[in-house]
């Protein structure tokens, strides 16, 4: 139902694209993937959620944990192509204060590279 669709590694950063309901399972899958990349030395991540048009609060709270672990290593996370409802949820949960959001992946890539 929900999964990581694609992982790209352009210009030393990692772009993770997802599909489906952004819940605990998908959140944890993302968290594990990002943790593995952090351990390998990657510090910049882009989450492309264009195909995840809904998120629950558990999914959002896992992203908060991911942001915390990235802050400890001076890394950063950006979102792109957020559905309005996902954007609103992230805003309410306070995520957008710590992460930039971009309307397209290319915009995010340009800003973070």
């Amino acid at each position: 139902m929900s999964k990581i669709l694609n992982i790209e590694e352009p210009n030393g950063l990692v772009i993770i694209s997802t599909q489906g309901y952004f819940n605990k399972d998908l959140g944890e899958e993302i968290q594990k993937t990002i943790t593995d990349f952090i351990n390998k030395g990657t510090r910049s991540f882009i989450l492309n959620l264009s195909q995840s048009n809904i998120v629950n609060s558990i999914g959002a709270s896992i992203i908060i944990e991911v942001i915390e672990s990235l802050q400890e290593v001076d890394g950063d996370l950006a979102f792109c192509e957020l559905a309005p409802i996902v954007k609103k949820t992230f805003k309410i949960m306070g995520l957008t204060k710590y992460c930039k959001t971009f309307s397209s992946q290319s915009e995010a890539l340009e800003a973070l590279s």
Partner: protein
Amino acid sequence: MSDLSEIHFVLSKKKSLKGKILSLDNFFEHKNISFKIFYTSKIFSKRFELEDYSYVKNFDFNKLFGNESFKLIKQKELSYLNQYDEFQFKINSVCSIIYFYKKPVGIICLFSEVELKENILTFTQFLSYHFDSIIRQFHIQSKLTNKTLSLQNKLLEIESIFNITELLNSHEENSKELYQNILLYTISTLNASKGLILLKNTNSDFYEIITSIGINEDQLNKKMIRDTKGILKDLKSSKKSIIINDTDQCVLSDFSESNCLSSPILSRNNLHGAIIIHDKESRQGYTLFDHFDLRLFDNITKKISLSFDNILLFESLSESKKSIDNIMSSISTGIIKINILGEIDYINSSASKVFGFDSELIIGNHYFIVFENNQNLNSIIEKSENEKEIVFETNFDILDFKNKKHQINLTISPVFDENNENSGVVLSFEDLSGINKVKSTFKKYVSENIVNELLKNENLLELGGSEKDVCILFADIRGFTSLSEKMEASKVVYVLNNYFQSMIDVIFKYNGTLDKIIGDELMVLYGVPLKNENDCQNAVNSAIDMFKALEVFNNKMKSEELPELGIGVGINFGKVVSGNIGSDQQMNYTVIGDNVNLAARLCSSAKAGEIIISKSVFEKLTNKHEFTNRDPIMVKGKALAIENWSFHS
């Protein structure tokens, strides 16, 4: 820097309680002071992540400390403390209680062989107070974080209700997309991991899955789902949202790992479907939906149910309206509904056609404006409105939008609502121009009697291709070609028109149908489109009368110094194929076949003043004595000679 200031500095550098304790460990180690911390409440240790530190079960604070909050350990206390393996204290250790809102939750112990006893006492006291304050601060912060999280969740719930309301308001029809979005919003709001929406198939009474998330829909769709058992039975009887804890009792929930929330979709208080969501997610794994979740779920699903009912009602209204519109537009009667304010509420396509109106433009306008060039019509509408009585008008003249005159048979009836209050008038009318057009068109080909019969009963008219018994008459002017060559064209036309008019009058008198005029030849049918009792006798009578009419015509021609005419007639009876024959550009109702050709051949062999009939005609005549048998004749296309009878005028 004094030691206390140093301790304060060490404590302020770290944010977490665990971090502070670790820093203190380091600090005291450098000072050769033994520092130990114990806790006596597991909840406390868990909250502040102190699981790595010693836990002392059933510690009796009163026995060690009495009414004091700190103690210098002597031999007496040591024997008590040493019953716990965790305590390895020496005499002259200083212990202090860690409080959490006045409740003792742990102990701090300091011991030094080098440091002054007074200093150790001061450090212990300072740390005790400090920890009390830190723990309180942490607790408040933690409560604040939880409250913030809870408020964020509430805000998300409110947002979800707004979103679902918005979603439902933006759809006027049930669609898979709408249900998908409803389910997505519902499961995300309640942190469910999966869910489905079922709707009843009204034909079979089985429930079908309309949309699902995280469920093997194909597997479930193979099962027969009815409201006679399981969750749907419960929803049907309770008609309210319920928590399902016995999930393995129903096919709709046996794949759940914790519990489910289910809610009915009601239409007019009857179960029409259900929303079921499964397995609430938490950071630690699946957890149980509780009554707070049920309340929120119920709130959301009630909106969906209400909207579903509205959508069904709207669909049913649209269906009824469509059905009425179809009926109204298929009838030839013009219908116009005028409301109590005198505004046009409805006009059907027949009425629009007669008046030449664009219905969209006139709806909502007052009839005084709409019918401004039909003052008579306005007057009788007003009369019906005022007197609240039905008004009939026959052959009533109206002008259409382009001021073209139409004749209608009009009825104006006042309309009353369910409270018997007048709610306007309805105009219903038949356009007579159409009927008149049919009459005038057909009158050229058939007698008025036949037209009237056809108008009375359209079923008699079969214009499709079919085989029929028909009597065919051909009448041809003898020697007309050579005659016309000697005459002026205008005179030829004049003579022919007068001749045809005389003949057609006779033909129609005997209910003949003028099939066609080919040059100077007439082809007439008896028995189509309407069958008469004796079509052959009618044809023969027509032919005999045609000679009488020709005599009158010839007298007229003679008086006008124009040439007299002589005609020959051939009549045959038999099966022919009748129908509309031709192309899209020109199509005529006619008959074809061998029997038509034979009638034409008989006409060719008839001399002027002679009628030649075939055997099939002769046998059907009631007045046979007027005809004499002739020698059989050979005609083109027939192998055998044709028997025939003749009549001489």
